[in-house]
């Protein structure tokens, strides 16, 4: 049996069918590894009342910023929304948007747990802080811990440098960040890449995200690097 065709001809085709109210994860950190073309596609697609899971909430119009500007997002799970997240901060201060702030490593681990089939886990991070509010606390081997729930999504929007036709992914430098974790934690993972390789062309030892985690691939115009 030949592998399922995962390559989509356009960004708009890759983001088609996302319903209002969907939960979507977005990779990216510090300006690197954001699926900016998929984000622009989601603006054109127009889904509303989205719940988003992302380390931050955009920089001006950039990254997720345009989705807030377009008022497509109703709630956010984030570690560091960011002082440059103009539209998010305005809507947050106006009480128009819900926010769950999560310690960054716990955000990773909650998604990793979901992808790994672990419904919840105990962690010492956030004990004695606002983060612990409403969570079960237990002392484990002498250490105070709180119960953290796993975190999944309907879709993950991610960015990689290269994919092959099966969906194996290779990232570039610090643009990897949240992308491989989110690929494991969503029902449908959509990736934008700069290059598409033939099956067998990627060195199996260097593949970071195996194809089983990837559903839709779209090639976008590559960046030029130094």
């Amino acid at each position, binding site marked *: 049996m030949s592998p399922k065709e995962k390559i989509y001809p356009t960004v708009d085709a890759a983001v088609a069918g996302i319903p209002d109210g969907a939960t979507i994860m977005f990779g990216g*950190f*510090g*300006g*690197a*590894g954001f699926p900016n073309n998929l984000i622009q596609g989601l603006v054109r697609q127009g889904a509303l009342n989205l719940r988003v899971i992302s*380390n*931050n909430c955009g920089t001006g119009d950039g990254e997720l910023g345009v989705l807030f500007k377009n008022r497509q997002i109703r709630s956010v799970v*984030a*570690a*560091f*929304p*960011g*002082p440059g997240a103009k539209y*998010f*901060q305005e809507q*947050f*201060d106006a009480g128009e948007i819900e*926010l769950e*702030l*999560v*310690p*960054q*490593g*716990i955000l*990773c*681990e909650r*998604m*990793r747990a979901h992808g790994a089939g672990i419904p919840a886990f105990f*962690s*010492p*991070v*956030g*004990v*004695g*802080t*606002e*983060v612990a509010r409403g969570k079960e606390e237990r002392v484990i081997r002498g250490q105070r811990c709180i119960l953290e729930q796993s975190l999944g999504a309907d879709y993950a929007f991610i960015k990689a440098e290269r994919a092959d036709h099966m969906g194996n992914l290779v*990232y*570039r*430098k*610090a*643009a*990897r*960040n*949240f*992308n*491989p*974790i989110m690929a494991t934690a969503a029902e449908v993972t959509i990736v934008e890449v700069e290059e598409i390789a033939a099956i067998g062309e990627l060195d199996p030892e260097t593949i*970071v995200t195996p194809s089983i985690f990837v559903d839709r691939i779209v090639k976008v115009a590559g*960046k030029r*690097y*130094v």
Partner: protein
Amino acid sequence: MSKTSLTREQIAERAARELPDGAYVNLGWGIPNLIAAYVPSDVTIYFHSENGILGMGPRAKPGQEDFDLVDAMKVPVTLVSGGAFFAQDDAHVMTRGGHLDICILGGLQVSEKGDLANWRVPGAKGAGGIGGAMDISVGAQRLIVTMEHTTKDGSPKILKTCTYPLTAIECVHTIVTDLAVIDVTPEGLVLREVAPGFTAEEVQQLTEPKLRYSGTVPSMFPEAR
């Protein structure tokens, strides 16, 4: 002797001397971000960044920036020989899992038990942000906080109990300020050094909890300056 408290750069310079050769280190925002420039030339430090870099080097030179190789403040950086890339979850396996030797964070308040508040000023506009600070504070083998000793209006930032939202409880090992180096110990706060020109009594007046010291407390910069 002058009575001027240290600059942010001088706090960073003093904090850099806490880093032993070969250490794996994470530096936070603010004053900690200035520290790498002051690591002595005979000391090698491997810097960790929570976006998946171990062996982060200096800022990229103009014209050589690679925007896939940035630090946690979005600044294009470099990778030292022997450096590695990995995903954000592995970056926090390193922080939370106790694999980093020393982490240095900025602070808004530190309590005498070593509780840290560093992510939100109550009443400030905006949502605030935790970032990696809670994972780092819980997991660091040794956590150093660098900050000004008092607020702009002169109120102590080293308190019996923090009044701002906490980052983590009982996590700080050492505080380096513009007036002093203070260790958090099970017996309380120990005044290890004072800024040039200041006395232990003067530092105590600007610190809410009792500081422990005896005799003349050494200078933060023993070489006269």
